[in-house]
Structure formats: structure tokens, C-alpha cells
């Protein structure tokens, strides 16, 4: 992409601006914050947590200066407690449920969880120190397809149960979206790497750079393993938005752009001077933040609906505004314009009006004939992921639309094959913490299946 740029800002400045946004609590800060927790009965925060972490319990342990005990409480429910402390939408989950939220403001549960889990983070024996150890060998084996949050959570739980586990992932490193899809402001990649390392320390085997269906077949897995867990996520490429000319230079998937940030020094990632992000979800916000901080002059998110319908979190939207990101609502890109070298030079859009609600309850956008052209040299598509149902067909599974047909919680049409995580979730449940809950609970279902089919 010769017409994108690096060096728009000094590399050290970019590194600093992309470092983890929130500083860690000091011991004193954590104890003071923990002391404000009411230790509610039947605590709403715990109910709101998809992994049901004993939040009052771990906060009480912070307050009483047992940081390891606090980490144990978290990790026994959620092995990706370090990632979730950083990336969970706490303002929509535990902190929203905090009884203090409408009054003096919620307890800072996310930051306290980070304080607690930092006790074991980076420790090569961290999980063991937190009491997570492999169980007595059962002689049974499970293949986990996908090394993201759901896959890792299932692998840890299966190892604790004593089963052999092999994780297959097409990427060079484990972690899935926690590794490749989260911007460093929210979570440094080292966190995801450490969590994956701890699952390996529990005795799981990783086959990375190995795509199931390409490098190894479904039949082979079913022959070699007693059960298979499909945790292959919500797919990769952006869903089609009928954008003419999307193959032009300078047009790329926002997730790929974020992945570049993760796998190389951010200052080495090329960016345009005038960047347009298509979409207004959290991936769009993340990509916009990165583009702005890499030094783009103008960053614009275009979205066919309005702020009221966007799926990005309000906090992320506010962060974008502070970075100078512009938002163009009611704007539908229809065509990529290029210069004579074939590089993107603009985005032809149509003005949208909102009509009756669609099946999701959101107003249906209706494209008008009014044309708007936005000049740009870099387009990042953040309009959702496209699922890959072909994988399920290779396992001989019944498929419903783009997902495996589920015959019970985590059960597919083949009793040996289980599925969970983003592969089966949608909407707001497409999150790290929901994926962890899925992986953990799927592992319990698999364990029960193996028990019944000894």
C-alpha cells in the first residue's frame, strides 16, 4: 500500500499513546476502592457477570489484603480474568448492576479485578499458584478448534478435569480476538499471551498455524479425539455491504488493521492521512482510535443509522470524540472511488433516511438518491464479521443459516461435536466474557458426555 504512510508521528509518541489506557491501581488505591464496596447480599454485579465471578468476595479479599485469594476467586470462575478485567464492557455488566451506580457511582470492579489478577499475571506458575491445576489423567482426549477465549476456557476446564486437550488455531499464536482483535489501549497483547501460556502450562497442547478443514480434516479429528469442541469464532472477513470497488488498494478490513497493530510495532503500520471507517460498532471505534493516534489528519466514521442505533459503547464513542474522530450518521457507502493508480481516493455515499423498525427493532435505513462523496485515502471496513459455515459442513454437521444447528446446550447434531463461543453467539454476547462462560460450560458438557460414554 504505497500510498499509506508511516512516520506521521514519532514512534515513541505512538507507543505512549497506544499504551494501556488505565493505570494499575496501587495497593492503597485498591484497598480504598474495595472498602467502598457494600458487599451486597445476592449481589447484582455477580448476577450481571456472564461468568458469575464472586465479585463481593474478591473485593473483600482485596480489602483485607489477600490479593492471591482474590485472584483465586476470579480465576476459578473465569480463567481469562486478566483479559476480562481490561476488556469487559463493565459499564454494561457488573458496574451497571452495582447498586451504587445510580448514586455515587459504581465500584470500579474492572480495575479491582485487574489489581487482583495482576498478582499472578506474568508469573509462569500463575495459574498453579491460583489453584488451577490439571486433574488426574482420564485417558480421554478433546480437540478444541480455535484458541480464542472460548477455546482457551474450555481447554483449561478440560485439563482441570484430567482430559488430554489439543487446541488447533490457524493463527501463529493462541488468543483469538483477545490476541489479535483488541487494541493495546484496552489490553496489551502480553496479557492474552500470558493467559494462553497458562493454559499450556496446565498441559494443553497447541497446534498453531493449523487450520482445521485445510491443514487437518474434520474426519481426522473425529478419529483421533473422543470429542471435538468448535470454538472457531464469528468468522473473519467483513460481511458484504454491497460496496462496489472494495477490492481497491487502501481498502481493508478493520480487524486486519487492528491485527497489524498487535503483531508489529504500531508505528510500522501504514495509515492514510484521511481515513474513513465504515461502521459505528466497537471495532469501528477501535480502528478509528488507532488511525487517529497513528497520525491521520482526518478520521471519519460513516454509519447508515444514527448515534442512537450504533452498537459501539458510549464510553468508546466519547474516547473517539476526544481523539478528534468525526461521525457521519445516516450515510451509506456505495462505491469506492480510485485514483489512476487504483488507490482509493474517495467514498461515494448515499444519504439515508430511517423508516419503520426492522426485526431487531432498529429503524430500517432507506437509501435515497442524494449522493455525498467523502475524500479519503484509506477505508477500513467494520461492518461485522462473516461466519464460515463451511467448517461445520466438513464435520458433517447440520447447519442452520450460518451456524451449526444446536440440539442442546453446546451440542451439535453429532454427539461427539460441541460448539460454543462467538461461533454460536450473536449481538451483545459477542464478547470475551461471554465466550469464556461458553467455553467453561461447554467443557463441563463435554466432561459429562465423556463420563457417559466411557
Amino acid at each position, binding site marked *: 500500500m504505497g500510498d499509506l504512510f508511516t512516520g506521521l508521528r514519532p514512534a515513541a509518541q505512538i507507543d505512549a499513546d497506544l499504551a494501556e489506557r488505565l493505570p494499575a491501581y496501587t495497593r492503597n488505591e485498591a*484497598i*480504598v476502592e*474495595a*472498602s*467502598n464496596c*457494600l*458487599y*451486597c*447480599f*445476592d*449481589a*447484582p454485579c455477580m*448476577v*450481571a457477570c456472564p461468568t458469575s465471578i464472586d465479585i463481593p468476595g474478591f473485593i473483600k479479599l482485596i*480489602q483485607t489484603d489477600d490479593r492471591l485469594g482474590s485472584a483465586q476467586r476470579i480465576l476459578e470462575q473465569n480463567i481469562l480474568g486478566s483479559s476480562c478485567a481490561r476488556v469487559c464492557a463493565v459499564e454494561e455488566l457488573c458496574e*451497571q*448492576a452495582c*447498586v*451504587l451506580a*445510580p*448514586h455515587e457511582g459504581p465500584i470500579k470492579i474492572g480495575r479491582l479485578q485487574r489489581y487482583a489478577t495482576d498478582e499472578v499475571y506474568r508469573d509462569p506458575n500463575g495459574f498453579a499458584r491460583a489453584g488451577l491445576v490439571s486433574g488426574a489423567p482420564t485417558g480421554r482426549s478433546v480437540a478444541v478448534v480455535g484458541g480464542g477465549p472460548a477455546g482457551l476456557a474450555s481447554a483449561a476446564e478440560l485439563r482441570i478435569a484430567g482430559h488430554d486437550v489439543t487446541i488447533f488455531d490457524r493463527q501463529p499464536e493462541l488468543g483469538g480476538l483477545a490476541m489479535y482483535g483488541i487494541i493495546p489501549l484496552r489490553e496489551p497483547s502480553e496479557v492474552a499471551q500470558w493467559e494462553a501460556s497458562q493454559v499450556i502450562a496446565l498441559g494443553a497442547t497447541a497446534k498453531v498455524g493449523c487450520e482445521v478443514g485445510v491443514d487437518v480434516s474434520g474426519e481426522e479429528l473425529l478419529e483421533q479425539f473422543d470429542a471435538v469442541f468448535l470454538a472457531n469464532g464469528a468468522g473473519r472477513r467483513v460481511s458484504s455491504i454491497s460496496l462496489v470497488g472494495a477490492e481497491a488498494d487502501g481498502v481493508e478490513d478493520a480487524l486486519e488493521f487492528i491485527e497489524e497493530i498487535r503483531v508489529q510495532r504500531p508505528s510500522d503500520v501504514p495509515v492514510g492521512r484521511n481515513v474513513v471507517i465504515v461502521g459505528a460498532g466497537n471495532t469501528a471505534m477501535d480502528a478509528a482510535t488507532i488511525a487517529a493516534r497513528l497520525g491521520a489528519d482526518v478520521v471519519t466514521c460513516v454509519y447508515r443509522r444514527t448515534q442512537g442505533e450504533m452498537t459501539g459503547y458510549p464510553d468508546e464513542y466519547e474516547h473517539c470524540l476526544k481523539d478528534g474522530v468525526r461521525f457521519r450518521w445516516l450515510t451509506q457507502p456505495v462505491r469506492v472511488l480510485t485514483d489512476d493508480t487504483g488507490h482509493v481516493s474517495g467514498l461515494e455515499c448515499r444519504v439515508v433516511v430511517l423508516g419503520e423498525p426492522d426485526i431487531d427493532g432498529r429503524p430500517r435505513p432507506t437509501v435515497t438518491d442524494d449522493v455525498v462523496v467523502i475524500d479519503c485515502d484509506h477505508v477500513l471496513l467494520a461492518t461485522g464479521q462473516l461466519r464460515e459455515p463451511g467448517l461445520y459442513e466438513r464435520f458433517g454437521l447440520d447447519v442452520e443459516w450460518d451456524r451449526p444447528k444446536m440440539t442442546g446446550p453446546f451440542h451439535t447434531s453429532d454427539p461427539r461435536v460441541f460448539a460454543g463461543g462467538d461461533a454460536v453467539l450473536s449481538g451483545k454476547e459477542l464478547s470475551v466474557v461471554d465466550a469464556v462462560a461458553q467455553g467453561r460450560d461447554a467443557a463441563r458438557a463435554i466432561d459429562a458426555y465423556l463420563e457417559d460414554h466411557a
Partner: protein
Amino acid sequence: MADLSTDTAGIQSPNPFWIASGPPGNSLRQVRLAFEAGWGGVVWKTVGGPVIDTAMRYGGLDVYGRKLVGLNNIELISDRPIEVNFAEIAQAKEEFPDRAVVVSLMVETERQAWHEVVKRAEQTGCDGFELNFGCPHGMSERNMGAAVGQVPEYIEMITGWVKEVATIPVLVKLTPNITNIESGALAAKAGGADGVSAINTINSIVGLDLDTWETRPSVNGKGSHGGYAGPAVKPIALHMVSSIAHNPELAGLPISGIGGAHTWQDVAEFMLLGASTVQVCTAIMHHGFRLVGELETGLSNYLDSKGLASVRDLVGGSVERISSFGDLDLNWQVRAKVDPDSCIGCGKCIEVCRDNQVDCIDWENGTVNIGRVAKVDQHECIGCDLCSIVCPVTDCITMEEQPRVLQELNWNGLNAKVGVPGFSDETSGITWERFPAEVAPLVDSHGFHNPSTADTGEPEPV
């Protein structure tokens, strides 16, 4: 604006806020700062023979992240030469003639020694003496301080010696480390004391270092008990002050109240229970001298809000409210009521009622996570007040007085009605066997556990 001037045993003071004998009153430099800030009086740090203090003299008690809820110390009396102290006391009095300057004294238990120190101290022009019979550590091991204060005969004897020569008021500072502080006050009065100061610090070990198993504070690996002070001791001090004020044989004995006072409310409480001045130390060790500004503003506004012209109108105002359990009405009933608009849904009340009392609170609107509200079963509530005490929202749970069902009756009255002659007042012969027929009809059933029912947690038969 109300008049804040007051006096204790004739020692005049422009306001009731005195600095207690301790670290804040150990030098002219400090006392100047204190008086400039507005303190009405100082009890100069105890003067006496030479002492040497250790490093690490204090230990703080933090509760739920709040610093210095309690403070332990092993510091001794003034570490400055007695003549230096006397010179500075004289200077302080000269510079601030309207303030109360009281000198705390402690010397060995010899009549001559007390006579000499009193005569010498009076030359400073000070307004009064406070005899330190309370210091619980260090000095007591040298047969001074609490070693004297724990033996009423010694209190009376030494107070008598002091009164033989003193021409200004003499207060005796009492130790709480005694079974009944009234015995100390009675002895002081018998010795001729013009008033008492109560309380001194309480024997304590504030805590341990769980890494080394040493005490806090640790002096090179060893510790000793110290004297405990600060907000945590206030309830103990209030009780002791009230018991002195309430004792008919001590009626009229002036009291300077001490023990954890930190706010204007604390000062008002000490005064309502009988103190005419209130001494403060730990709060200054936590927040400095300027705290007196908030004490003065708060107390003054409180007096205005109550329509009181003088702070003296508070003194002893609650003493008659202190009664004994046998006089309390057993048939006066209240029930807890939750204001659903202010309930935040924390469930503290539900859990503590379930785990400690009668399990009469539950969610009003089922098990919803957000927007849930607690509700009290008014038939089951016993009016104990635990729920409102744990409720984090001010005035969310109120205790509502109930229409009277049974006429006023206290334990003494019950005993007079149904007690068995020949039994003592304490046992009365009121047995559980006699309860259903003879006692239960007279008293509200919320006040006792019905002996015919078992609380097994099983559902009651329909």
C-alpha cells in the same frame, strides 16, 4: 450566635474545646499554634521527672480503609526538662490570658514531691492542675499514673496532698482501666478534687505484624501494651462520663470529658452526658489544630438550631435519660419500614435479619437484579433496628412507632406483678414454664421467643 464560653471547676475557657494532655501540648510553639487556631484551653503535656521515649510510639487501627479509627501509644509524659516546661507555660499564659492553661502533673508517690511540684507550677500563673493518675504504660510500671489511679485509696491520698498546697482548681484524670470508674471519682472527691477528667487511654495492643508476629508498634522486635484512644473509644468514654455524672454521690462534680472526640457532635454528646469541657488529642494527631474551626462552627450552629443561648445549657442534659434496663418499657414497639424510593437494593438488611434476627425482610419485587427493593414483614419485625444500622442509605429504613397495644410495663414492674416472693430481683422466679400463662399476656410477644415454637428453618405446618 450562642455563647460558647464555659468552665470546669472554675477554670474559665472561651469555648469548651481543650487540648488533652499529650503530644499536641508539649511546647510553647505548639500551644501558640493551637491558641491561634482557636482552642479554648490546653492541658499541658504531663510534667514530671525525666523520661526517655522509644522510637515507634504509635499504632493506628484502620477499619475498612479508614485511617486511625483508633490510636495506640506508648509515649511517656513530657520529655522536656520540667523548668523549660514551666517557663513556657508561664509565657503561654501571658500571651493568651483568656485561655485555660492547665498543667498536668505526675511525680513519685511522696507527699513532699507533690507539694514541691504544685508550688513550683503555680508560679507559672496557670489556671489549674490535672493530676495524671491514668497513664497506663511506662509510668505505671514506675508506680505512677494508672498504678495510682487503679487504687482509689492512693487517688484520695495524693489528691489530699495536692489540695493541702494548691490554691487553684485541681482536676483528677481517671483511668478507665478499672472495674468501676465511679470508685476513682469518689476517691478524688473524697480527697478534695475540684473536678475530674475522664477518661485516660485504655490498655491495648493495637495489632500484630502478621509477617513477623511482632506487635504494632514494634520496638526492635518487642512491644508492650499501650494506651488506646481515638474515635473507637468514644462510646466507652461516654459511658464512663455518664456514670460519674449519674452517681448521686458525685452530683455536681465538674467533669472534663475526654475520649475520641473528633467532631462537634462528639463534643455535644460529652457535654450532654455531664462534661463541661471536652479535651481532644487523637483528632489533632490526625488532622492538626485547625480542626477546632469546624468544631466551633458546628457546635455554634447546633446551639442556634436548638435555640440555646449558651453551651452551658447542654451540660448534663441527657444524664436523666440514662436509666437501667429494668426501667425500660417492654411494651413500646417500633417496626422497620423501608422507603422504596431510596432503597438501592443492596440487600444488607435482608441478609443481616436472616442471619441474626427473625428473617422478616425480603425483596418486594421478586428476584429482579436491578431495581429491586427490600420490604419488611411488619408482623414479624421485632423492631431491633439492626437493618437500619447496616443500611448504607441515610434515612432509607426508619423505625416507626406502633400504636400501643399493651400498657407500659418494664422488667421491674413485671417482677412486681408476677415475680415469686423469695426470689431475688435478678431471677424473679419468672421461668419459661410460667411464661405462657402468666407473663405472655402482659408483654408484647415481639420481645421474647415463644417457647412453644422451634426455629428450625422448616416451613411452618399449614
